[in-house]
Structures are given as C-alpha cells and as structure tokens.
C-alpha cells in the first residue's frame, strides 16, 4: 500500500516537472520569436543632441532647413554621448564636433569632401561654424588673460591638437610682468569643453597659484550662467539668439569647427553621403543603410 502511494507520488512529481519544463520553454520561445526581427541590411539608429544644444541648433538650421527630425531620433546631452553610442551601436549615425573624431568611429565624407580642418578652413566642407567664448562686459583680470592665452599661438596649437580648426592668425602669448591670481569658473558648450580643459592645464603650468573650474553644461546654460554672473566665461558653439542680444555680452571667437557625421566603423554600407541623404536620414525617410548603397 505504502509502495503504491509512493510510486503514485513520484509519477505525479515527474509529470509535474515535465509540464513545468515544457510550458517554460514554450513561453520563452514564443516570447523570443515574437521579439526578434530578422531584417535584411542594417536599421539606421539616428542619434542627435538635446533640444538646447548649440550643435543641434546649427544642424537643424543648416542640414534640416528647420524641418522636424524623425521622432525616433535618440537624444544625447553631449558630443561624447553621441560618440559613445555610435561606437557601441553598429547601425548608428550621429553628428559631433571635429575634435571628437578618432579611430573609434568613421567620419563620413559629405559630397566627397573629407571632414578635416583643412577643408573647413578652405570653406569647402559644408557644415562648419565658429566656436565662441562670452563674458559679461569686456573681459578683465584673470578671464582676460585666459582668453588671450587661448587666442595666442600657444593656445591655438591646443585647438589644432584637439582636432578643431585654429584661427587664421594668432600672436605669441606674452606672460612678462603678469601675475594674475584668484579663481575662474567656466561653463557651457560640450563641443568647446575639450579645448578649454587642455588650455586650462597648460595655463596652470604658467600660473600655478590660480584655480580654474570648468563644467560642460551646454551652450544655453553657459550663456544663461554668464548673464546671471554664476560663471565668469561661457563656452558656446552657437552665436547669441535674438533674446540674448543687447545684454552686454562680449563675444570672442576662439576657433572654427566642422560638424562631422560619424557612423560605426563596422558600417560597410557608406563612406560618403550627400546633404540630401543626410537630411532624409534625420527626417526618418531613409531607415535602412541598404537604401544608400
């Protein structure tokens, strides 16, 4: 009697286990097959900047002709963020300042013109703009020295090293009889940020007693903060808007920059792109890399 009960129980447990196993595999396979999409080619993942970025504003005006982006555009709040996503995502396309282009990504030619400093300087690369620093009123004291330093030959070498386009002319920085002191806070554009970071390090070698704080918050925030007096110098990748004009801001152009269109190095579909194709991608009319080859 006891034996019979035991075998019955065992059988029950076995069937139970079998049913459980079966149902789990069934459910998981249906779920997985439902999710996986097998597509030909490679879907384009469109990456862009957030709505307050100077780079995005420029891109929107000069590439999109002020038309809306695709609603699938994924937002990143910095150049570095776009770079990061493009390196991680095979199908991604994004736009960054020239300074952010390196071997981790592939910069596309536009109308067969390579994105580099020479072509920006020559005016042949179609999407290029200037980079600025702003101060409230004329720069004075430490801020003035720092801006002079960036615009000097030494500073412009840093601009060049970081992959941006230096000013056409510059003079040697004259540090004789100068002894600036105190502290300086700088905030704003993430595009300009790498230049200022490097320049800060070089400047501090000259004057070890000063302290400089840099935060990369975006062009809009930089300009807002300099007007509110919370930072001394604003970095910006765009010119002032009409609402920001006539508030007493002084503009210093410190470099030029091309906007590079970058894709993942694994992307074998394209090396060159036309402005029309670029616009179509960002409008969501072209959604697969297949359509470009």
């Amino acid at each position, binding site marked *: 009697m006891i034996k019979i009960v035991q075998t019955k*129980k065992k059988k*029950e*447990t076995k069937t139970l286990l079998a*049913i*459980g196993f079966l149902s789990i595999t*069934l*459910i998981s396979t249906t779920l*997985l097959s*439902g*999710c996986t*999409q*097998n597509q030909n080619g490679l*879907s384009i*993942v469109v990456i862009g900047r*957030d*709505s*307050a*970025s100077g780079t995005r*504003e420029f891109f929107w005006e000069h590439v999109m002709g002020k038309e*809306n*982006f695709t*609603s*699938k555009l*994924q*937002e990143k*709040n*910095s150049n*570095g*963020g776009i770079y*990061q996503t493009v390196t*991680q*995502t095979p*199908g991604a396309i994004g736009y960054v300042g020239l300074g952010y282009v*390196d071997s*981790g990504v592939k910069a596309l030619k536009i109308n067969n013109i390579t994105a580099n400093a020479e072509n920006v300087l020559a005016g042949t690369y179609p999407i290029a703009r200037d980079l600025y620093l702003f101060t409230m009123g004329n720069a004075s004291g430490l801020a003035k020295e720092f801006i002079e330093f960036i615009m000097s030959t030494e500073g412009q070498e840093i601009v060049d090293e970081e992959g941006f386009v230096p000013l056409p002319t510059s003079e040697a920085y004259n540090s004789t009889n100068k002894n600036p002191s105190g*502290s300086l*806070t700088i*905030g704003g554009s*993430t595009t300009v*940020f*790498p230049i200022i*970071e490097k320049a*800060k390090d070089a400047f501090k070698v000259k004057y070890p007693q000063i302290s*400089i*704080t*840099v*935060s990369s*918050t*975006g062009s*809009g925030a930089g*300009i*807002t*903060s300099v*007007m*509110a007096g*919370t*930072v001394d110098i604003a970095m910006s990748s765009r010119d002032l*808007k009409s*609402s*920001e004009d006539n508030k007493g801001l002084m503009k210093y152009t410190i470099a030029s920059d091309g906007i590079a269109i970058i894709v993942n190095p694994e992307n074998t579909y394209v090396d060159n792109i036309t402005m029309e194709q670029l616009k179509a991608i960002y409008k969501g009319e072209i959604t697969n890399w297949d359509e470009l080859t």
Partner: protein
Amino acid sequence: MSLRQLTKFSTITKKTIKEKSVKTILFLSAISAVIVIFSIIFFLFQDGYSIFQTAGLWEFLSGTRWNPTGEPPVYGAFSLIVGTLLVTIGAMVIAIPLSIGSAIFISEIASPRIRSIIKPAIELLAGIPSVVYGFFGLIVLTTWLRISFNQPSGESWLAGSILLGIMAIPTIASVAEDAISSVPREYKEGSLALGATKWQTISKVIVPSALSGITAAVILGMGRAIGETMAVMMVCGNPTYGLIPEPITNIFAPVKTLTATLGIEMGEVAQGSNHYHALFGLALLLLIITLAVNIIATVILGRLKEKQKKVLKKRIPLPYGISKKIKKTLYVIIGLLVAWLLFISSGIITTILILSIVASIYYISRKISAKNIQRVAFGAIISTIVIVIIILAILISYIVSNGIGAISWEFLTTEPADAGRAGGIFPAIVGTFYLIAGAILIALPLGVGSAIYLTEYTREGKLTKIIRAGADLLNGTPSIVFGLFGFAFLVLYLKMGISLVAGQVTLAFMILPTIIRTTEETLKSVPQSLREGSLALGATKWQTIRRVVLPPAAPGILTGAILGIGRAAGETAPIMFTAVAFSGAIPSSVFQPVMALPYHLYILSTNVPNSTQNAGGTALVLLLLVISIFLIAVIIRNHYKKTIKW
C-alpha cells in the same frame, strides 16, 4: 520676599524661559519639513505656471509632441507621461514577483541564518547609487539586449524597466516583509493546526491578511520608479520629441520619461525662456504624480496600523454565494482583458497557445496533491530569491572587475587630467565628502529637533499629522525635483550660484525625512517609564529629554544620520544643477562649485569618449564608499539591538 526666595524665583523663571525657548526652537525645526515641501511646490508653480498659460493646460497635458525649440515650439507632455508610465509598469512587472517572492522567502521560509545573509544582500541593492546602475545599464545591459534580441539599438523601454525593476526590489521587499511579519502568529498557528500545508497557510492566510501592506509596498516601489532619473536617462534612448511606442507593447522602442527630459534639458536651457518654464511645468507634473502615489501608499499603511490597533470592526459579509459570484465575474473580466492585450500584442496563435497552457496548468494544479503544489510554489519562491542574488552578484562583480584595474594610490590622490581619461579623482572624493558633511550638518539638527518635537512635545493631533505628512511627502519627492528646486531657489533666487553650499542645502532637504523618521522611531522605542521616572524626580522636560531620553537613543539617531549620508553620497540629480563642476580644484570657499563622485561618473560614462577605465574606477570607489557607509549603519544598528534591552 527674602533674598533666598528671590533667587529661587529667578532660577525658576530662568528655567521656564529656557524650556519655552527650547520648545520654540524644536517647533521651528519640526515645521521645517513642511516649509520645504511647500516652498518646493511654490517655486515649481511659480516658474511653471506660465507654460500652462502660453501652451494651454489641456494642450500641455494631451499633446504628444515635445519640441520646445522648434518653430513654432510645441509643448506636449503626453508622450513623456506615457513613457514614464510604460517604464514604471515594466519595472513593476519585473519587480513585483521578485520582491514579493523574496519577502515571503525571508519572512516565512528561510532559516534565521540564511535570513541574516539574504536580508542585508537585498538592502545592498538599495545602496547602489542610481548612476552606477545607469553606468552598468549603458555598457552591459543595452549591449546585451541589442545583440541577444537582434535589435538595432538596445537603449529602450525594456532596458529602463529592467534597471528600475531591480532598483525597486529592495523598497518593495522590505515593506512587504514588514507587512508579512506583522501578521499575528495565531493566524499562522491556527491554519497549520487545522492541517493546512505551509504553502496553503502562506497563500491562503498570511498573504491575504498582509495584502494591504503588500499593496502599499508595491505603490511605494512605484513611486520610487517614477521619480528615478539617472539610470533611466542613461538607458532609455530618449527619442527627441517623446515617443509613444508603436504598437504600445513594443518593448524595444526607445521612450522618453518626464525625469529624463528634465535631466537632459535643464542644464542647457536659457533661463526665463518658455522652454525653462515648460521644464518647471513638467517637474510640477512629476511631483504631483509621485505625491499622489505616495499619499495613496501612506493612507493604506495608515489604515493598516489603525486596523492592528483597534479590534477589528466586523463588517457584515455578503452572503457566500453572492461574493463568490462577484469574484467569478471579476476573474472573467480580468482574464478577458489579459487575453485581449495578448491578442493585440502577439497575434491569435500565441494568445491561444498561452491561454491553453495557463488553462492546463490550472486544471492540472487542481489534480495535484497539496504537498506537490507546495514543492512547486517553494521552488518558484526560491528561484525568485536566487534570481535576485544572481542579479546582485552580476552587478557587483562587474563593477569590481571593471574598476579594480584603475584603482591605484595615484588614482585616489591626484587630480584628473585629459578630461578625466587620465589622472585621478582626488578632488571628486573630497568634494563628495564636503557635500555630505555640509548636508548632514544642516539636516541632522533640523531632523532630530523635528523628531523630538513630534514625539515628546505634542499629542497626536492635527499638527503632528501635518508635520508627518510633510515629511512623508518630502520623502516621496523625486531627487530631480530637489535639483530643480535648488536651482530655482538657492542658485538663482538666493544668488548662491552653482556652489558647494547650494548643493549641501539641497542634499540636506533631501535627507531630512530619512533622519526625522529614524529618529522618531528610536525615540518612541525609549520606554515611557524612564521619562516618568525622571519627571517624577523633578527634572524639567528638556532635562529629561537631554539626560534621559537622548543618550540611549543616540545610536539609533546615528544610524539614521549614516543612512542619510549614504543616500546623499550617491545622488546625482540634486547636485547636477546646483553644485557640481566637471573639473576644478578643491573649493576654497563654500561659494565655489565642487567636483563629486557620482557626477564625475555620469560625465565620464556619457560625455567623455575612451574613458571607460577611469569611469570603472570611479564607479568602484563610489560603490565602496556608499556600501561602507551603509555597512557602518547596519553594524551600529545590530550592535545597538543586541546591547540595549529594556
């Protein structure tokens, strides 16, 4: 009057003056939480309401396009609200089974020894800073999702839900466990004595009687998930105009949540523009949603407490047959709803398949002996706890293995170089310590004073209710809202600028409710007889509090303070707009910006290419810092539990 009498008189008046002034000071600190929550609402409203006028309240709430810099600008928050809800619902689907399973395991199944290991492990999940989750999600989770599901991009609704689900587990599990543990022993014993199996007792007696507590736990977890910023911002993809997935069940679509919109756009917006006001409008919306969720949870928990206190008032039950019918129709309606959702999302074949599987499982389960059902149920519960532990192990081992290579003496003691790719994080470590030190210096006196006033100086009444509600609401306020408030009030209105002090005050507001709550609980645990003894000996009220009540409560208060510090150390969103800079020296005054570990990690992992090694190192240092702070709190708490017995 003799001289002696006169001196006696004057000491008495001195005493009463002292007592009165102490009471006033305590009262002022007690209402601080209420003042803070009201000023948060006030400032959000002040900066946000104009968008309801320019865009129209209805358009703001129902518009599906968020394009504040377009021409013309469009402010439609609906798709952002939908994004928030979708991510939260997904998170709950993941978190509810895992955390309730864990709660049942800890309170009913585990042996005391296993419990003493598992419980802190789950609490550890709560200690991991949001930005560390985001860092993990950005590098590991999204890549894994993209490859294993063959998607073009892993940054999606699903990624956000998984992260938020994990983050909500400790909140839900701990409140649910409290609820389950507080079910009277007699219920359990009665059921077992009647011959019910352990699982029958758990499923038919214990869980139903703890149901309202479990519901509150889920709602609290939901509140946490809705307000979470950093992790969501880093993994959800953030489609630029906000996007309602098509179809709505497409879990691989990117979504943009309210918090992510605030986190991304707030830093770059021109102050005073319509866009700026629109963001404050969003923050107000977010605050209202989370407050509503938290109020619901508080009400449920409050009722639960009353229920436990009072003898159960008997409701007249519906006749058995009718209540059964109601239940049946409810089940049918829910079943149809689920079937319909399945049909929409995955077509007719899978619907039939899944439904038949469910039906057969139900049918078979009725035929199986109670013992075997218990086996299956326990197996499922144990697997939930195993999953939670595995998740924790993956997270910790990833952070450790990824960060250990970067850690060196130089890394800890030098300044960053090359935009954080090289050099160390010394100023960020110091900055974090400055921030938490300032926050605790402000929050501890306010919080302790407030708790003393609540427990020692007032009877339960309207005033205590208001103060407690203020603290609860403050506790439920999303950290990004604190950030916005700090920016509008401290940075701009009080003209502190982006500065150390602004960050300290913002963080202090954030941890204030934690300190109030823990202190209150400790003070309540000091027996009334001690107070009565002291008062009977002629001590004044303040003397009693200072000499008799506070000393034994000190370890408990310390624990609360440390928990607050731990929370402050890991938070990013509140300091993002108020205090931090990406690079800079150690500040020489409180009016300078500082570097901080969580923000440094955020910027390295999202803004600076090729900085993975230092980002990993920063994540590890931050994790170790926060976890060791929590460990100290746990050790003090355990030690205190063991040594003090009344």
